[in-house]
């Protein structure tokens, strides 16, 4: 299987860092970063990652608006998006699902677990 490419869009730099480290260390995948909704959209259009990890709570353009934007562009509408959020109630999960996100990962998480979680959500088969 080819190495996957992950785009993490989160306004917290430390989150970006630990996600990069964790994913690389565990699965060896490439991790791209963006610090805002706008930056994320640009990067996504340019780089076409295999999956986008998207923080919901961001200033200016939040996760939901960013997602809607991504969905409305032909270049990015096919890319699966997973929300990173502190909210994880059934109701909210359902709201996110109705929007069309592929999955939700709740904070706090261990970034080393991310590749497994992503694979599970997107039904990728990972090398053992």
């Amino acid at each position, binding site marked *: 299987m080819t190495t996957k490419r992950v785009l993490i869009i989160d306004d917290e730099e430390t*989150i970006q*860092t*630990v996600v990069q*480290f964790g994913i690389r260390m565990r699965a060896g995948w490439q991790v791209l970063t963006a610090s805002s909704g706008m930056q994320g959209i640009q990067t996504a259009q340019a780089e076409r990652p295999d999956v986008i990890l998207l923080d919901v709570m961001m200033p200016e353009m939040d996760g939901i608006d960013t997602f809607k934007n991504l969905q409305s562009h032909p270049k990015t509408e096919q890319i699966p998006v997973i929300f990173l959020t502190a909210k994880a109630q059934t*109701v909210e999960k359902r709201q996110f699902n109705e929007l069309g996100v592929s999955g939700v990962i709740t904070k*706090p998480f261990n970034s*080393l677990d991310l590749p497994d979680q992503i694979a599970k959500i997107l039904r990728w088969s990972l090398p053992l």
Partner: protein
Amino acid sequence: MPKRSSKQSSPSRNPKLSQSRQIKDELWQQQQWIELFSEVTFKIRQSLQLKEILRATVTEVQRILQADRVLIYQVFADGTGKAISEAVLPEYTAILDLEFPQEVFPEEYQKLYSEGRVRAIANVHDPSEGLADCLIEFINQFEIKAKLIVPILQNSPAPNEAHHQKLWGLLIAHHCDRPRPWGEFELQLMQQLASQISIALAQAQLLEHLEEMVEVRTVELKDANHNLQQEINDRRQAEAALRRNEEQLRLITNALPVLIAYVDQQQHYQFNNQAYEDWLGQSPVNIYGSHLQEVWGEDCYQRMQTHVEAALSGLVVTYENEIVLKGDRPCSISMTYIPHVNEQNVVQGFFALASDISDRKAIERMKDEFISVVSHELRTPLTSLHSALKILTTGRLGTLSADGQQMLEIADENTERLVRLVNNVLDLQRIEAGEVTMEKHTCSATELMVQATEAMQPMAHQHGVKFSTQPVNIPLWVDSDYIVQALTNLLSNAIKFSPQGGTVWLTVERHSSEALFQVRDEGQGIPANKLERIFERFHQVDSSDSRKKGGTGLGLAICRKIIEQHDGKIWAESTLGQGSVFSFTLPAQE
């Protein structure tokens, strides 16, 4: 004043002249008598007072007859008697008020007198008069020489003895200086007077009787009036007391910042305190008699209705509601209904008390928001912290010295603890605040058990603990995420407190309309006095031990909330040194 007829008038002179003169005298005398008689009668009848009548009688008779003594003697029922009125010349002894024993007036005499016999005795000492000796003795005592006795009769009051007459007493005239024959006129006069006295007696009696009746009546009326006054006073006092109480009640109810009202069985207001005007802008006077729905509006009434009906069935009800105050201000209230039950245990209405809990609600909301925000804010830095430490512990970024490694482990473990705590606190807060809407759907007990054991398998493996599960396909109506959370929590505890190589059992059984889940371990057990308290927040069986095992103290509290939200029950049983069983029930579907 007629001359005394004298035996000493000379008949030897001209007989014709003396005869006509005698006749003239007699006629003149008669005229005098008649005049006197009418005078006396008039005098007698002037008064209605018996005493007066009797006194007038004896006085006039004495004057007319020129007797030395005239008295009226009353006869009593036992045969004794008394002179009750007397006119007597000063030279002679008074008999007035002397009591006469029965012997003086023997019964045969009484009988004769009661038939109306008049007794005229010209000379008492004349034996032909036939007076008894004892009587003569008595007579001499009083120097009586001649006497005239006329009975005074009274109509008997007995109704069937119409003409029977009773002897009331005697009208008696005495001459004391010498014996004297009594003239026919004198006898007639006395008899007439005796009749008059009879009549006067009857009248006096009637008057007395009437006066008596009037007196009795007057006393009765006075009493009645007195009682009435008393009643009026009592009533006035009671009314005053009532008014005071009402005033006090009004003062109190109007002073409290609470809605106070009384509602009857038909749900109409019978009492409202001033607060209704202050809060709702509707005065108690206007509200009186209105139906609840009229006062609160349809929307609000819909929310109230079930509680109102519960109160009217005799239950004490407390609930919270949102209302709108005057000025369109929203307000949260806590409403309590207290049914009013009479002696026959029939509900007549209820008391409604509402207090403003807006402040409390606001604080609760702020608290919830605060906790939410804080734990939310904590999650991001925790993610970084948690991930970074985990990455370090892989060793792939370089290894530390043994001590360094230990430090790292400490940091890592405690960060894990923080993560769990943050998750739990928020969960508990949300569940308690009722913010959590459990989305129930049909799922099988088997599904839940499988999910839970799968999630806990790594931890079990880590602790060297085996699972033994017996899933049964019981259909349940639950929010599966939360039930799985509860199960994983119980399994996690069981693993933590199990010995190495031990087993943890997870079973489910159907009991009529319930499913009974049980998690059993072979751990150290829980003392009996803690079996209830372990479900409280932040309570752990043995804090030192638990902290080592990384517990937060919230897990069981959350479990209980989740189970309760599903209308189930959760409890623990344990034998110290042998193990524990945690059980919970959930309603099962058909």
